[in-house]
C-alpha cells in the first residue's frame, strides 16, 4: 500500500436497456458518476436499481447502450473485468465467509493469491493497509462474531484492499441500525472527501441521500425518472420522481386511549441462542390493550430470540407468557383462544411454506375449523379458495392467483399475504418483528396503517423493529433491548435520541 493511488474513474453509461424474458427491467437509462462523487441511485423495489448496477459490474450484459470510463469506450463482460477498471461492489447480503477470520477473508479476496500463503507477509501488509484506513478492525476476529455494522465495514475495507476506486453499495444499511448506518456511510463519505473513492449508493431512504450524497439518479419502473444534485432537490421532489406522485407526510391516526388493562405479559423470560449460550436474560414486558409497544435495539441483542420464543420457534429456559392473566403457550387452541397472532421477520421463511399455494398458506390458522374442515378431517377446497380470493382482494396481493406457490411471490406480496392471514380475524395480541424490512414505501405505509388499525381496535401490539423511525412513528411506548434484557422505557414524545442511542450501544 503506497501513497500513490489512482484517481477514481469517471464512469458514464448511456442508453442502457435490459430485458428478462418479456419483462423490461431497464429502458434507456443513463447514469454518470464523476470522480470523487457520492452518487445516490434512488428507486422503489423493482425500479431497476439492482439491474443497472449488475450491468455496470458485468453480472448482466445490457441489451443496448454503451459505457465509458475516463472518456474511453469500454465493454464489461465479467465482474473481473469491472474490477480491473477499479469498479467494486458491496452486496446487500454479506460476501464474507462467516467461519473465517477477517484476515482470511481479506486475503481470500485478493487476486493472485499464491498456493501456499505466507501469513507473516500477508498480515504485515494487512496491518500496514489498516493503519491507513479510518476504521479499526481486529484481523483475528472471526466474521461471525462481528455485528452487522462491523461486517459491512469489513466489506468496504475489502473493496479498498482490492484497490476499488468506484464503490457500489447495494442498500448497505438495510441490515443496520441507524447508528451503524451513520457510521458506515460516514466512513464512506470521508473516503470520498479524501478523493480516494467515488461511491454509488443504492438506497430507498431519503435521509441517506440528503445527508450523505452529492448527486442523485432516480429510477422508476426501469426508466430514468430524474437526476440532479441533492442540494437542488427536496425530499418531496425526489419522492415525487420515485413514486410518480407526491408523497404525503403521513399523519398517524391514533384513536382511543390505551386501556390500563395489561393484555400480554412476559415474565422473566430466559432462552438460549443458536450457539447454546443464554441470550435472553430475564425479559419482563407488559403490553396493554390498545397500545403499540416498540422494542428498539441493535440486532443481535436477543430480539430475534425473543420473537422466536413468543412464536413457539424456540423453547424458553424459564419464565412465562400470559394473556389476560392466563398462561399462554403457542398451541393452536391457545393461540385461537387468546386471539394471538405473529408477524415474524423473513415471513417466507418463518411464516409460510414456500412451495404450498397462497390459498393454503392463508388458511393455516383456520384450516382445522369449520367451514374449511368437514367431518373432522376433510378439507373443503372451495371454501379455502373463496377465503383466499377475498383476502387477496382485500390486501391487494399481486398477482391475485390463490393457486400460485407462495415462494413465487415478491417479498412485499408475501408480507401482504401473511398480514392477510394474521390480521383478518379478531386480533387481541399481535407480535410483529421488522414487518417492513426491505419493502417499498407503499407497502410500508400499508403495513403501518394496518398495525395502527389493529391497535385502535384495542389489540395489544408488540413491535420489534430495527428501524427507530418506524418505532417513533408508531409506538405508544418504546423500550430498548440490549444484552438480552429490556430496559429504558420511553414514549415517542419524550424520546431522547442520544439516550436511546447510548442504550442501544450498551452504555448505561
Amino acid at each position: 500500500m503506497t501513497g500513490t493511488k489512482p484517481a477514481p474513474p469517471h464512469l458514464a453509461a448511456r442508453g442502457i436497456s435490459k430485458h428478462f424474458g418479456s419483462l423490461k427491467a431497464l429502458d434507456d437509462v443513463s447514469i454518470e458518476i464523476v470522480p470523487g462523487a457520492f452518487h445516490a441511485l434512488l428507486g422503489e423495489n423493482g425500479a431497476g436499481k439492482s439491474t443497472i448496477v449488475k450491468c455496470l459490474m458485468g453480472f448482466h450484459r445490457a441489451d443496448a447502450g454503451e459505457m465509458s470510463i475516463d472518456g474511453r469506450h469500454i465493454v464489461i463482460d465479467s465482474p473481473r473485468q469491472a474490477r480491473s477498471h477499479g469498479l467494486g461492489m458491496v452486496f446487500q447480503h454479506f460476501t464474507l465467509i462467516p467461519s473465517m477470520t477477517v484476515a482470511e477473508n481479506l486475503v481470500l479476496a485478493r487476486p493472485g493469491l499464491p498456493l501456499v500463503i505466507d501469513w507473516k507477509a500477508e498480515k504485515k501488509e494487512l496491518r500496514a493497509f489498516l493503519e491507513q484506513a479510518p476504521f479499526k478492525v481486529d484481523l483475528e476476529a472471526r466474521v461471525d462474531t462481528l455485528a452487522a455494522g462491523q461486517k459491512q465495514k469489513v466489506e468496504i475495507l475489502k473493496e479498498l484492499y482490492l484497490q476499488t476506486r468506484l464503490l457500489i453499495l447495494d442498500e448497505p444499511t438495510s441490515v443496520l441500525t441507524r447508528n451503524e448506518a451513520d457510521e458506515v456511510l460516514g466512513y464512506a463519505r470521508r473516503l470520498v472527501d479524501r478523493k480516494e473513492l467515488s461511491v454509488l449508493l443504492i438506497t430507498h431512504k431519503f435521509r441517506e441521500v440528503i445527508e450523505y450524497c452529492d448527486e442523485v439518479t432516480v429510477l422508476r419502473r426501469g426508466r430514468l425518472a430524474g437526476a440532479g444534485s441533492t442540494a437542488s432537490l427536496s425530499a418531496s421532489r425526489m419522492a415525487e420522481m420515485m413514486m410518480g406522485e407526491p408523497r404525503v407526510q403521513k399523519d398517524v391516526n391514533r384513536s382511543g386511549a390505551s386501556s390500563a388493562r395489561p393484555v400480554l405479559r412476559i415474565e422473566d423470560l430466559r432462552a438460549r441462542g443458536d450457539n447454546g449460550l443464554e441470550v435472553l436474560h430475564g425479559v419482563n414486558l407488559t403490553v396493554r390493550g390498545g397500545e403499540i409497544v416498540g422494542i428498539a435495539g441493535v440486532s443481535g441483542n436477543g430480539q430475534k430470540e425473543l420473537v422466536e420464543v413468543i412464536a413457539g420457534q424456540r423453547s424458553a429456559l424459564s419464565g412465562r407468557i400470559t394473556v389476560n392473566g392466563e398462561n399462554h403457550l403457542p398451541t393452536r387452541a391457545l393461540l385461537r383462544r387468546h386471539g394471538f397472532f405473529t408477524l415474524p421477520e423473513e415471513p417466507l421463511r418463518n411464516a409460510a411454506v414456500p412451495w404450498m399455494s397462497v390459498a393454503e398458506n392463508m388458511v393455516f390458522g383456520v384450516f382445522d375449523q369449520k367451514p374449511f374442515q368437514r367431518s373432522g378431517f376433510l378439507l373443503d377446497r372451495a371454501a379455502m379458495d373463496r377465503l383466499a380470493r377475498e383476502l387477496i382482494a382485500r390486501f391487494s396481493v399481486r398477482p391475485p392467483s390463490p393457486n400460485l406457490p407462495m415462494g413465487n411471490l415478491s417479498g412485499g406480496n408475501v408480507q401482504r399475504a401473511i398480514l392477510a392471514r394474521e390480521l383478518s380475524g379478531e386480533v387481541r395480541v399481535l407480535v410483529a418483528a421488522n414487518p417492513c424490512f426491505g419493502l417499498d414505501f407503499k407497502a410500508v405505509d400499508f403495513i403501518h396503517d394496518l398495525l395502527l388499525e389493529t391497535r385502535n381496535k384495542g389489540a395489544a401490539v408488540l413491535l420489534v423493529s430495527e428501524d427507530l423511525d418506524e418505532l417513533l412513528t408508531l409506538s405508544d411506548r418504546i423500550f430498548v433491548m440490549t444484552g438480552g434484557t429490556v430496559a429504558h422505557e420511553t414514549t415517542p414524545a419524550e424520546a431522547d435520541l442520544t439516550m436511546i442511542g447510548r442504550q442501544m450501544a450498551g452504555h448505561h
Partner: protein
Amino acid sequence: MQLQPEGLGAWGIAVALAGGAMRGSIPYMFVSLGECLTEKSGKINLGMEGVLLMGAVTAFGVSDLTGSPWLGVLAAAAVGLVLGAIHAWLTQQPAVNDVAAGIAMIIFGSGLAFFFGKRFVAPMAPQLPLVALGEWSRVGAIQSALRISPLFFIGIAVAFLLNWVFTRTSCGLKVRAAGDDPQAARALGIDVNGVRFIAIAMGGALAAVGGAHLTLYFPGIWSEGISGGQGLMAVALVIFARWSPRRCLAAALLFGGAQALGPSLQSLGITGYYYLFNASPYLLTLAVMVATCTPSRRLAGMPGALGKK
C-alpha cells in the same frame, strides 16, 4: 485380574489395547479424514462405506495380481477417486439430495465390491510391510501387538497435512469458503462446484486407502463383512471431531481402541461378553451422536452450508 495367562495383567491389556487402537484406527482415520475434506467443502458423502469396501477389494486384487501391496494401495486410492467423483457429479445435479445419493453409493460400492470380490479366491494377498514398535520388549506378545501398519503413520501425516492445507493454502481457504457460504464464495469468484468436485473426489481416494488397510493387513483376506460398518461410523466420527482433521485422529484412535477392546480381552482369556465388547464401537457411535446432537443449537465448527446446494 484372575486370568493372567501371559503374566502381563493390566499392563498387557494396556499394550494390547494401544496396539489394537493403532491398528483398528486406520480405517476410521482415513475415512474420517476423507469425509472431513468432503464436508469442509459443504457436501456429505455417506457412501464412504461403499468406497471403503471397493478400496479393500481393489487393494486385495491388485496386490494379489501384481505382488506389490503398495500398488494395491495406489489402485485403491484411484478407485476411491473415481467413486468420489461419481458422488460429486451426482450430488451437483439439480434436486439430488446428498443423503439419498450417499445411500445409493453405499449400495453401489458394496455391491460392486462383492461382485469383484467373488473372483479373488486367493486366501491371502501380499501384505504391507509392518513397522515394529515393540522391539524394546522381550515379550513376544508385546512385540506382535506393536507391529503397526505403515498406513497408520501415513494417516497421521495426512491429518496434519490437511490441517495445514485448510489454514495455510489458498485452495484450503477456497474449500472452507465453498463449504461455509457458497453464495459468498461465488461472489469472490470461486468456482464452488469445481472446488467441491475435487474435494469430494479426493475425500473418496483417502477413504479407499482406509479400505486397503482392511485387506493388506493381518489376516490379509477379503470377506464381505470385512468393514463391519466402519465407513458409516467414520462419518459420524467427523461430527464428533467437529470437522477438524487433527481431532479426527484422536477420535479414530478412540474408535479403534473401542474396537480392540473385545479381541484384547479375549487374548487375555476373558472371553465372556466377547460379542458385547465387540459391539462397543457401535455403542460409542450412538453415544457420540446422542451427546453431540442437540436440537437447540448448531454444532460449533460445522460448515455453514453442509448438505445444501
